[in-house]
């Protein structure tokens, strides 16, 4: 057997003090140090999700497709709501559904992540922030699948997006941050009060109707638009449509900036709540 090499001399470099209520000075550095664990956890979630599920990938295709069809029929054909410019209604719906399903999957996965990983939390130390963030990666894979579908649909409709599509990564990041804020807040509370897990499905369902997924946000009366933009997803969806549908969609800038401010506030609240409760997770879980 290979004799293991003797450990390095004890150095003050690794000195670690454990104390009540001591906030970790190098928490963010630690987070970076544990990046490999982050990769592995994200990879595990993806591998498990698509392992042994015949319709794993199909499910990611069917769900948005059916929702799009239903929305197009109800809002576009029955209610006869206008599309964005000349873009086909189905495309407009799908461009809105991309960020929405990313947001809703990320939110629900992140919110339950700590409880489903309770065995890790109670046995090993690592910055707990890794767990909810890693689950968002799974939502991102679903997002990529849906995005491939959008490309196919654009080819079908012979729709050419403008230069704005180059800004899409920025809006993806925005959608990610928008889901992370409330996700962190709820996952922290979910550890303490398990009732919060019932809040998520309701929130997601409710959000689908108050967000401009099935319709364009331009149908909202002008005087209400700023108020409507308090919903952070409004800004994200508008941004996506602006990117993907090119010149056909106008972005409502004051509303967009308001949405961004709300995203940042939620993110700050979420991280703060999470960090405050992090030390007690193992005791509560």
């Amino acid at each position, binding site marked *: 057997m290979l*004799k293991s090499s003797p450990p390095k001399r004890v150095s*003050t470099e690794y000195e*670690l003090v454990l104390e009540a209520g001591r906030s970790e000075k190098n928490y963010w550095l630690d987070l970076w140090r544990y990046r*490999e664990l982050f990769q592995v*956890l994200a990879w595990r979630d993806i591998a498990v999700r698509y*392992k042994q599920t015949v319709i794993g990938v199909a499910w990611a295709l069917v769900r948005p497709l059916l929702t799009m069809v239903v929305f197009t029929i109800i809002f576009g054909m029955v209610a006869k709501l206008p599309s964005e410019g000349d873009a086909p209604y189905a495309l407009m719906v799908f461009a809105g559904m991309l960020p929405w399903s990313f947001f809703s999957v990320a939110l629900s996965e992140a919110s339950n992540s700590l409880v489903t990983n309770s065995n890790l939390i109670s046995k*090993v130390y690592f910055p707990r922030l890794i767990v909810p963030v890693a689950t968002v990666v799974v939502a991102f894979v679903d997002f990529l699948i849906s995005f491939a579908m959008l490309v196919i649909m654009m080819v079908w409709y012979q729709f050419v997006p403008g230069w704005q599509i180059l800004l899409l990564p920025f809006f993806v990041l925005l959608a990610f941050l928008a889901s992370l804020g409330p996700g962190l807040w709820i996952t922290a509370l979910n550890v303490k*009060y398990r009732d919060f897990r019932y809040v998520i499905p309701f929130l997601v369902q409710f959000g689908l109707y108050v967000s401009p997924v099935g319709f364009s946000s331009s149908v909202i009366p002008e005087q209400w638009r700023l108020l409507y933009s308090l919903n952070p997803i409004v800004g994200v969806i508008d941004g996506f449509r602006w990117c993907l549908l090119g010149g056909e969609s106008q972005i409502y800038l004051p509303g967009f900036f308001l949405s961004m401010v709300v995203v940042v506030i939620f993110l700050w609240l979420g991280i703060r709540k999470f960090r405050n409760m992090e*030390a007690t997770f193992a005791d509560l879980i």
Partner: protein
Amino acid sequence: MKPILTVDSVSKRFLVGHQTQRESYTALRDVLGQHVKNFVRKSADMIAGRQIVQGDEIEEFWALKDVSFEVHPGEVVGIIGRNGAGKSTLLRVLSRITEPSQGRAVLRGRVASLLEVGTGFHPELTGRENVFLNGAILGMARAEIKRKFDEIVQFAEVERFLDTPVKRYSSGMYVRLAFAVAAHLEPEILIVDEVLAVGDADFQKKCIAKMKDVGDSGRTVLLVSHNMGSIASLCTRAILLQGGQVVGDGDPSSVILEHLTSGTNKTQNRKLVGDENGELLDVWAEDPHGVRSNSFSLESKINVVMEYRVLRDLPVAPFPNFHFHDQQGQCVFVVANRLDQANKRGTYKAICEIPGNLLNDGAYFITAALTCSHNGIEVCFVERDAVTINLVERLADDIHGPPRFGYAGPYPGALRPKFEFTIEPIELPTKSGIAAC
């Protein structure tokens, strides 16, 4: 040298709730009232951000109270104590899973903790995938796992099943793979909780050897175990926890003895054990003068005494027997005897005289049993570890004299008997012999 680990009056508090005793009947009004009261209290707690505790009365519970000790590099420290003594809480605090309520601990090295084998193993993933997953969870870098992958697989003996999901593994294979990953960690401080209690005997031996290897290479190990054998054989030092406090710290064999003899003193308040044929009344050890004791010198004779009662007349007398176990749990020897007249109803006293200069120093655990043989072999009672004795070596004035002849280390072996040992010259070089050389 600076201690690698300093624990300075660390305390950990938990809140526990109690359900108060209800009246003999419960009225709906009371139940509703109780629920409303609880609901209001919980809501208030939640808004204030306090912990919600189930139950009507809240009590503080200190799992650890003012625990202080220091560990120097290279020490292998065993932490022992009864269930609920705070061992696991201490390890959880030191592995940063939970933070102390008071006090502080300073760790001066990279820590890896192993509170469970196979933390994070996912049943759907293959053995290969789980090695990487588990390694990353325990804090190994990807490159490090890759480098040690073959060694890990070889250690676990699961080469053939690497690409099978671990849900199809036998529990032995699962545990072997899990421990193999952990055994290849190379931290400066390794914290281990009770993981040796798994796996078959062969694998346990292998793990103990690997852990010894870890200790020998200068790494610091903190180990919790209920297996006194592994504590005694692995550790250089033991810490005894009781009710969340350190009550013993030092040489493993003496701390183990303290642990095993503490609390319920076995010679008092003994509960009667036995069947319809016979029962145990009392068992103890005494010196040749009849003074009960648990501590003897190596040269001293020891009388192990058992009082028992035969409950009915038997065709053949039952025979009392004593089993001597060492700290590793190995049976050192068994002694038994029978008195043919001892088959009548009545109480009897069996005395076994252990000569001086037979047992080694350290603790021995004596099991007392009574066996009937009139109807095949049938055991009336077995009282495991009924008596614990500690043998102490009185240091001779001159270490260069017998029996140590200058050797100061531990005397190996389960026994240290003093036998006839003669040395006689066969051939001595004569003057001419030297000349011949």
